[in-house]
């Protein structure tokens, strides 16, 4: 007998995977914080909704996914795009409305998509994604690919009929679908504590006969573990799961939101439970990664974001000839 059992790496999180997780979370944070600055300078058209603070959710879930898996996102979709592997420079160019953007400047922040990566698009409609994910999960099932669909949605969308209908349909059809309710405490300017009757979105799972769990959204490891279990279950034919991820968004509903509806939660969250800080201290505590390695990732990420912004600003805008293209495959 040995004194200790061999230490398994939970969820396959070896040093390499931990570096990937950190790089993804750091990229999302840097992308969003840079957008926060750039938006204030007035160069970015339209609206942007920032995902900063919520990085552990997109990252912890999407690390289990590959190209056969689909995700549907929300108006706060940059983090999901990055975590699902959408090109960061193409995203930035899209947000600037450039022809080199992920959607040639025709989609913008709220519609960044890359179907080749299984990223079905950020979505401007609250509750728009869950029905679509029932469909991608159905396609995986029909084609026997072992793929899953993941619908990210917020506490606001948790009250939409589309979401509740989709939970029911996914359960009835036994679909390989995972519903990730990102409860950041506010739907626009309305607290989820007020708008979500019975308070926990996860509790609604019981009404559809599927598992519902709550995880700490600031804790990458908690999200990663729960998502891993749910995705493995779905791939194996075990059906859908509802995961409620609780956390806070660091910025307003959209950029420019003065956020007078809340007090100092963000400051407190940034100081005490921030997912990146917590991740750093825990992975360095295990000795699996060291500070120097993480700092070099930071440097690479910041350089990537700098380049993405510089290239986006230089990139050509779409022209009149682009206005009427790509409405149909043929017409």
């Amino acid at each position, binding site marked *: 007998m040995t004194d200790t059992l061999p230490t398994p790496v939970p969820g396959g999180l070896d040093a390499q995977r931990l570096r990937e997780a950190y790089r993804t979370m750091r990229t999302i944070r840097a992308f969003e914080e840079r957008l926060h600055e750039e938006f204030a300078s007035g160069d970015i058209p339209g609206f942007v909704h920032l995902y900063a603070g919520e990085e552990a959710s997109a990252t912890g879930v999407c690390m289990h996914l590959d190209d056969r898996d689909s995700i549907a996102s929300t108006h706060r979709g940059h983090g999901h795009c990055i975590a699902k592997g959408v090109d960061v420079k193409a995203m930035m160019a899209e947000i600037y409305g450039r022809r080199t953007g992920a959607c040639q400047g025709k989609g913008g922040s709220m519609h960044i998509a890359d179907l080749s990566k299984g990223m079905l698009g950020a979505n401007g409609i609250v509750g728009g994604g869950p029905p679509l994910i029932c469909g991608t999960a159905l396609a995986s099932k029909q084609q026997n690919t072992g793929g899953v669909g993941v619908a990210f949605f917020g506490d606001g969308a948790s009250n939409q009929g589309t979401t509740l209908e989709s939970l029911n349909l996914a359960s009835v059809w036994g679909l390989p679908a995972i519903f990730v309710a990102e409860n950041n405490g506010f739907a626009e300017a309305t607290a989820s504590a007020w708008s979500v009757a019975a308070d926990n979105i996860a509790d609604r799972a019981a009404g559809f006969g599927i598992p*519902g*769990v709550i995880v700490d959204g600031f804790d990458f*490891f908690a999200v990663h573990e729960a998502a891993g279990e749910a995705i493995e279950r779905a791939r194996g034919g075990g059906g859908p799961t509802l995961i409620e991820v609780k956390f806070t968004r660091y910025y307003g509903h959209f950029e420019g939101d003065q956020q007078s509806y809340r007090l100092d939660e963000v400051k407190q969250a940034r100081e005490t439970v921030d997912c990146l800080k917590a991740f750093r201290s825990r992975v360095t505590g295990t*000795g699996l990664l060291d500070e120097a390695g993480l700092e070099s990732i930071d440097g690479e990420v910041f350089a990537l974001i700098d380049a993405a912004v510089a290239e986006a600003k230089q990139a050509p805008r779409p022209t009149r000839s682009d206005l009427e293209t790509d409405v149909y495959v043929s017409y």
Partner: protein
Amino acid sequence: MPDRDADVAVGIVANPASGRDIRRLVAQASVFPTTEKADMVQRILAGLAATGVDSALLSVDLGGISAGVLRARNRRRPGADPPWPHVTFLDEDVPTNSAQDTRNAVGRMLDAGARVVICLGGDGTARVAASAILDHPAPTGARRDVPLMALSTGTNNVFPRLREATVAGVAAGLVATGAVDPATATTRARILDVDAGDRRERALVDVGVCAAHFVGSRALWDPTAVSEIYCAFAEPDAVGLSSIAGLICPSPREKPQGVVLRLGSVDSAPVVVRAPIAPGVVLPVGVLDWCVLRSGEARPVTATSGVIAVDGEREIELHGDRAASVRLRDDGSLCVDIAAVMSEAAGEGLLRSHH
């Protein structure tokens, strides 16, 4: 004996987070809805009022339990609904959605002179409430030995009892008003102290050491990663880690000793136990050896890296840089024995009148 002339107050602390962890996904554990927790509080209030409790002190949470009780109070129809004690919501502290809320609420209850603290949650919530009572500073007139009544609303519940809340409220009321003899109404629980350098934890039931780097989603349900278990008591009809010990060397709550087990591979261990390790999960577990854990005895944890779980929740990450130890103490919380209280109430005719 409590002074019946003074206002008789009982505290009720309810944890909105219990019954939601990953075991609903990996092990078909039950969902304990917020609405049911709020309903339990209301049933307790009816039981308290029926036994003459004047005042109930309620914790405030962001999960919807206190909001549910508040809604119910605002909708009460005078004369039509059964009476409640005066209800006070302890809203001085800003809720943090963490165990600190339970600690704060119990502290406020003791400061306000609560004579019983009723705790709704799982083993984890009971552990925090028990610790809050044990750690409460004795001065300012608060009593350290306020009895705890832990009611189950969680998952792997071994310490809290699954009892009907109305009856629990009646029993708590009989204790709080001094109608029953505290000596027969309460028992003293034991407690496990975990010392890992800068991290200290307590467990009411068991301490498990498992091979993992990270706390992750907290709950512990995979026995293959567990190498050591320390139990304050071990009952053969329990669920969770302590059931392994309960099935080979039962150690009742009433007896002043616990048990330590070392686990190993099911292929090579001399004893293999099929244990209900979590709701819906009965697995063979290899047991290398076991021995009695005596009160006051500190045992060093063998593993130097891994995660320590208390009462089924992974709490402390060991990274090889510090030693940990577990000590059994027999001076834990006073706990209300609902069966004993109700039995005495029947014997003494406390709830009976004659014409």
